[in-house]
Structures are given as structure tokens and as C-alpha cells.
């Protein structure tokens, strides 16, 4: 049995650039690490920090947010919003002991399948070096917030 540690990366890929880059990587038969689970979002600016926290809480070892290059966003500056959030989020996660390398932002245009593949490879290597996060097993997590009630 293969017991090598395989990190789980949750990847939020923007519809206009990075998801197409992932498509292209597939069509071009680029071989890269199979560790990223791709989730298509309309824009990297759509990624609420809650998504990232939830991914870590539910067992992700790393989160990748990929979008269009700055200046090329389909929605003008959604990717810049994402960059500002991720930068601040990394500083915040450090206080929980979650290494900054575990949250990554990547720019990959629709023609850059190899850029995305390289980024996934690189992040997989980095996460292998860091080891598993196993948030749920290792932390005392309280029950989630109860659902709102109509008054």
C-alpha cells in the first residue's frame, strides 16, 4: 500500500482565466500533481474568506485561489480584491499557526495551462514539506453557530 502523504488542496479557480487554464492543462495532457480539487467560481473576488476557513476546518491542507492576471479581470478588479483579502487572511491565519504557504494566490490566464500546473506542483511539494494540517483532529472546535430564527 502506498502510504505517502498526499496533501489535499482546495482550488478556487476563476471562470474566465484559471478554470480555462486548468481545462487547457488537461487538453494539452500536461502531467501534474493530482492533489488539487478544483472548484469553479465566477471570479477570484467571489471567494469569501469564510470559504477558505471552512476548507481548512474540513480537512484541506492548502487552499489555492487562482484568477486572471492583475489588469485582466473580467470584472475589472475582482482579482485585486482577492489579492487584498488573501494577503490579510494569511496574516490572520499565522496567528492560528497556519503557515502562509498553505494559502496561495496564483495568476493564470486561459492560455497558461502550464503555469497553473506548475503552481499546483509547487504547492503540493511545499505542503508535503509542511506535513498534514488535520485541523479537525488536532483542534478543539466548538459547535457551529446555530441557524438564524425569524423574529
Amino acid at each position, binding site marked *: 500500500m502506498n502510504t505517502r502523504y498526499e496533501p489535499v488542496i482546495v482550488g478556487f479557480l476563476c471562470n474566465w482565466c484559471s478554470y480555462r487554464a486548468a481545462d487547457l492543462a488537461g487538453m494539452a495532457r500536461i502531467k501534474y500533481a493530482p492533489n488539487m480539487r478544483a472548484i469553479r467560481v465566477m471570479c477570484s473576488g467571489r471567494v469569501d474568506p469564510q470559504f477558505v*476557513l*471552512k476548507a481548512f476546518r474540513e480537512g484541506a491542507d492548502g487552499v489555492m485561489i487562482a484568477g486572471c492576471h492583475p489588469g485582466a479581470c473580467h470584472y475589472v478588479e475582482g482579482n485585486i*480584491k482577492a489579492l487584498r*483579502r488573501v*494577503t*490579510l487572511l494569511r496574516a490572520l491565519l499565522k496567528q492560528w499557526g497556519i503557515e502562509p504557504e498553505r494559502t496561495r494566490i496564483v495568476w493564470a490566464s486561459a492560455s497558461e495551462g502550464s503555469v497553473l500546473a506548475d503552481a499546483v506542483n509547487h504547492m503540493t511539494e511545499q505542503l508535503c514539506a509542511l506535513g498534514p494540517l488535520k485541523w479537525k483532529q*488536532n483542534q478543539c472546535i*466548538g459547535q457551529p453557530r446555530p441557524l*438564524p430564527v425569524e*423574529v
Partner: protein
Amino acid sequence: MAIEKPKLAMYWASSCGGCEISVLNIGERILVVDEVFDLVFFPCIADFKVNDVKGYPDAYIDLCLFNGAIRNSENEEMARLLRQKSKVLVAFGSCAHEGCIPALSNLTSKQAILETVYKDNPSTENPDGILPGLTEEVPEGILELPDFYNRVKTLDQVVAVDYTLPGCPPEPHQIWAVLQAVIAAFTDGTALPPPGAILGAGNKAVCEECPLAREEKKISRFYRPFEINPKPGKCLLDQGIVCMGPATRNGCNALCPVVGMGCRGCYGPMDGVEDQGAKMLSAAASVIDAGDPSMDEEELAQAIEDVVATLPDPAGTFYRFSMGHSLLGGVGIAASVKGDDP
């Protein structure tokens, strides 16, 4: 025989006592409360013992206002006891609701807290390195101390809660409004709100009530309150002061921003938000100046990094009151010591 009055109790667990003061801040209307209710337990202002409560039949207390977080086994025991003895249990104030300031300690562990408090503080003298234990033998017998938990819990993480009254502390006018509704329910038979409701607060952002003018400005650095004299009438976030208004439930009439102090976030998040800190992080990130479009990608990332570096404690700032319900919960506690929390 006089008609029996409904019974009122108020208890403090891990809290500062501000909630009790806030109840007394409803002013002379406290006399109405006294007229309507029979006080059966209220350690802050009246001499009742835990054994009195233990002696009450189940569901004897009609309304119990429980403030304070669950920090140790004694807090939890009291929460369970009062739940058993109360018809309506209210999580009163931010500690019971969200964990508040005590829950900031969830960023560290029990062991680290005890080491700091009992050994490492410069003003502490403890040459034998004695840490508090659970039992202590003295000539008179064995003394027991409550168990200090690894993480602070909110009241609803320990027992079922009927209503929540947010705030640190809840505003007196809101407390009075809620008490009036409860009094009406007990005296005229008006229906109580549905269980689980958040009372004494709105469901919009503090910004809705805030008179300061928002101008969609971008900031080149964050300021801590002592570093800047805010311009009157202007949005504080626009000026680089972290104001939790965009991510915080209203109901306080924007008490803090009005006087130039950024909203601390004590009323907790609005309905549908799981993690107040994450929402505030988005709002704070949105005012960061992203530099100019001519910058290349590295310069841009660095410019944003430089602004972020001026905010010294993002977790403590964004989760000042809501750590108890944060998505990530407590920090780095090894599985081996996790087990001592029931």
C-alpha cells in the same frame, strides 16, 4: 393569597460584571422589574446560594439571564443547573453569546495560560513552580477547585439556549425593551418570541445606524486608535481605523463610531454569517489601497503586504468578540490534552 410572581434569576459565569451593571442601568425602571418579578438568584446584588438553586424544583425559574462564557467546570456546572431550573434561559451579553474577550484565549492553550500567569510573568514569584491543581489536601480535609478548560465555550455550546441578547454589555434601552416584552408575556399572556431568536438588536449592520459619511476612500496604512485623531463626521474605516461596523449587528445606535472609536463588534454578526471575523476581514481588505495600475505583479503584492503589515493583531481585532463561534475554533491543542474537556 397574593398571586405568585414570575421568578427571575441572573448569573455570571466567566464575565466582568458589566452585564449586571447594564441591567441596573435601566434606571428607575428596575423598580418595575422588582414589582413584577420575584428575585430568586442574583449573586451580584442579592445573597442567594447555589444550594438554594439546587433546592428549587425543575423549571422553577421563569426567566434566567445568563451572562459570561464557559471557562471552567464550575461555569459549566452552573449553566447546566440553571438550564434545568429555568423555563426560559437567555444568553445575556457577548460572553454567553459569542465568547467575547475571554474566548480570545482560544488562540492559546490552557498550559500556556497557566505557565504565563503562574510562572513567567515578571511580577510573579513562584520558585516552586506551583500550578493550580484540581484538589489540595489541607488539615481540614480535601479542597476541590474547578477544572480550567482548554478552550472557552459559549453558553449555547454547553446547554440549549432559548434567546440571545447580544452586546458587551447589552444596551440598557434594548434590555428594557426585551424585559417589557417578557413582562407582557407573563402578565397579559402575549406570545413570547420564537425560541432561538436574537432579541434586543436589529439585523442590519451598525453602518445602517451610523451617521458618519462613507466616501469609498483607500488607505495606505491602518491606524490604532491612539495613533490618529479621526476627522469628525467621516467614516472611520475610510481613515484607516478598523471599525467593525460593516460586519456587526446593529441595535446600539452606533455608540462607538459616533464618538470616534471604531466599532468593536460586540453585537456579533448578522443572521446568515458564520464567521464575523472573516466578514470583517473582507471589509477591511476592501479599503486597502492597491497601488497604481502601472505596478508589476510583485510590486502590487508588496504594496498590499506593506499596508497589511500596519495591522498588528488581525485575529484579535476581527474576532475580538466572536472567537467562540469562529470557524477555526481553538488553536493548536494537541489531541492528547484535548480529552479533559467534557
